[in-house]
């Protein structure tokens, strides 16, 4: 659709008045399937490092969560906490959101000429990954819904959120967004995006009106996503609320074990896995020939991917429970160790999209018509190395995090055996992830 040859464009304008339907999202180039060499090398590295870690890693817990880290200089603290900074960020978030909505309402229904779809699917969804990794939970500060909520008159005293809810609403929100991005009939159309944003705004403003601003930290999918990824950021807040520079392992260790953490991670892993499957020609054939129609089939596929990831996790948690009856929360105790694995998947799947479509979206927003997507910065070999490197690094970080948690929770004589189920689960996830990059 982008930049047709002038001749073809003229012909089409003459005899084809129907605007072309766009049954695809943002981004015209997909990554090449991984060459087998890289896949084998990656799988071998993951297995090797896992066993090495099992044998050689420390035997008493080293990660101290939010008690670790070196405080940042007072000037940085003051600057980060200054009212002006906070207000400026709120205004920035609100202005960006307003721009997107106006583009959706007034702009053309064509992701090649309207920057709004790219702003949501690339700059927000993918861009939150590097932003949160570098700077911490940025969406908390930018979230335009928080600003709107603060501007609206408070109705009455907010009711506290029931403790059992945790971040489950955010998991549901993430699944809905994943459905929009990967399975909806027309994910980049203005109608689809406007409906999603309207529903998102309505639900979360109502929720916040009932439960206060704490609602956003538990239910806003983008905020929970950003806050989870920020656990791997070198910048974080210590137990006393001060900004500290710390190893991502400490930040990861301080991930709160809220209900819904496992569900959220399973949605992240499952939806990224489905994104990998959806490129496969056999799955495309299934979609196109299914008697249910493509969108319902894709929905089922997405749900199946999430369910598969979740059931593997459930199996693993059951095995953990069998090994140690005293472990009260086998599900959530180790959930944090899946976060780096999810991050590895996200990086491998969305790196190219972000570096090519991100700048193009910005160019379009600045008024360049028909902005060309810049060429991918990496040659196929470099990209394959980066993808495998991301998946394997995520796996290694996950193994180390799980090991540390294991030696803390299990008595020393059972620490190594205790982490075996988790170990098997991670190997399964990583090999599956590599398999999807090859397929």
């Amino acid at each position, binding site marked *: 659709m982008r930049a047709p040859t002038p001749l073809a464009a003229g012909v089409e304008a003459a005899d084809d008045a129907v605007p072309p339907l766009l049954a695809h999202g943002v981004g*015209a*180039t997909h990554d090449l*399937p991984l060459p087998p060499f890289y896949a084998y090398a990656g799988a071998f590295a993951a297995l090797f490092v896992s066993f090495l870690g099992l044998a050689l890693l420390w035997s008493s817990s080293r990660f101290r969560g939010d008690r670790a880290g070196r405080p940042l200089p007072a000037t940085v603290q003051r600057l980060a906490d200054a009212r002006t900074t906070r207000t400026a960020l709120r205004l920035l978030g609100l202005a960006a959101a307003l721009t997107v909505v106006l583009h959706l309402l007034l702009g053309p229904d064509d992701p090649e000429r309207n920057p709004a779809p790219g702003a949501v699917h690339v700059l927000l969804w993918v861009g939150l990954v590097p932003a949160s990794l570098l700077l911490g939970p940025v969406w908390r500060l930018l979230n335009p819904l928080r600003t709107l909520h603060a501007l609206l008159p408070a109705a009455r005293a907010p009711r506290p959120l029931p403790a059992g809810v945790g971040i489950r609403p955010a998991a549901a929100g993430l699944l809905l967004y994943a459905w929009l991005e990967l399975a909806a009939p027309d994910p980049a159309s203005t109608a689809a995006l406007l409906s999603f944003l309207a529903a998102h705004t309505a639900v979360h403003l109502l929720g916040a009106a009932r439960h206060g601003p704490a609602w956003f930290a538990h239910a806003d999918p983008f905020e929970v996503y950003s806050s989870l990824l920020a656990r791997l950021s070198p910048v974080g807040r210590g137990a006393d609320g001060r900004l500290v520079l710390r190893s991502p392992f400490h930040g990861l260790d301080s991930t709160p074990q809220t209900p819904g953490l496992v569900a959220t991670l399973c949605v992240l892993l499952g939806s990224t896995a489905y994104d990998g499957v959806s490129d496969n*020609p056999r799955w*495309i054939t299934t979609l196109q*020939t299914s008697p249910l129609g493509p969108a319902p089939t894709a929905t089922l596929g997405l749900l199946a991917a999430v369910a598969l990831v979740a059931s593997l996790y459930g199996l693993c948690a059951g095995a953990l429970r069998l090994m140690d009856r005293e472990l009260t929360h086998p599900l959530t105790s180790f959930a944090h160790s899946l976060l780096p694995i999810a991050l590895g998947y996200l990086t491998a799947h969305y790196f190219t999209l972000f570096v090519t479509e991100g700048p193009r979206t910005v160019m379009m927003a600045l008024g360049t018509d028909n902005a060309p997507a810049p060429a991918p910065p990496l040659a*196929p070999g470099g990209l394959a190395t980066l993808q495998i490197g991301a998946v394997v690094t995520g796996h290694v970080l996950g193994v180390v995090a799980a090991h540390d948690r294991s030696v803390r929770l299990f008595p020393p004589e059972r620490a190594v055996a205790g982490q075996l189920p988790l170990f098997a689960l991670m190997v399964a996830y990583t090999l599956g992830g590599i398999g999807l990059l090859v397929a």
Partner: protein
Amino acid sequence: MSARVSARPTAPPARGTAGRRSGVLLGAVLAVTLAAGCGGRATTHHKPGTGHQVATGGNGTVLPATDEAGHRLREVEAPGAPAVRVEARPDSEGGWNIHLTVERFRFTPESVGGAAIPGRGYARVVTDGKEATRLYGPWHHVPPGVRTVTVRLHADDHTVWAVAGRPVEATTALGPPGPPSPTAPSATSTPVPAPGRTVEITVNGDSVQPPPSRVEVRKGERVTLRVTSDRPDTLHVHGYDREVALPADRPVSLTLTADRTGLFEVETHESGLVLTQLVVR
């Protein structure tokens, strides 16, 4: 100007005050001369491109020999001489797109007709021995039917840049575009791309035959998609952004040169079907 003035120091110095004055003058003149001399050897009092005659010196020597159209050759030394290479790619609508790669040469359409300046000028396209056109840039389209194309570098005064008495030029043979090749390609400076492969696809309602698969293509290879649809539609190759209208029940071909790596989907716009994926490595 400087050339004429700088001859003076050889004159005997005048005596007395006049001599001192002339000494001061001489110093000033020398300073001016030196300053003016920084820009290189001064050969003409005209600005570039406004001379009355064919300039010589750093611009080479005009030879008595001419090319077939009567342009004189302008000999320059091999080191620093301009060079040209030409490559041809088949165009999807017929004919060829030729691309000139020039070294130590710049296209200067704004000063054509002026004096020859080293490393500047234009190119002339000669197709099958006949002068076709001038080129003021690196790209040109050659219509189908042409067998050989020669590009030759000219100076702004229309002389032909030459090294060792031979014009600076490049020639390539253009094979017949398309699979049937009655004539063998002659020796060429650039190999002509292979005709490439053809992928046949038929769309019937929601069914795609053969079912979507991956077509592995080497970078630079040509691919022809031959698609028959049972209803009017638009064929679209992602990434390459090539579109072609598909009339009902009539095969339509779309040819492209796979010059970008990646995985690209080929789809129809109206029915929203993925027909195949091109895997370009």
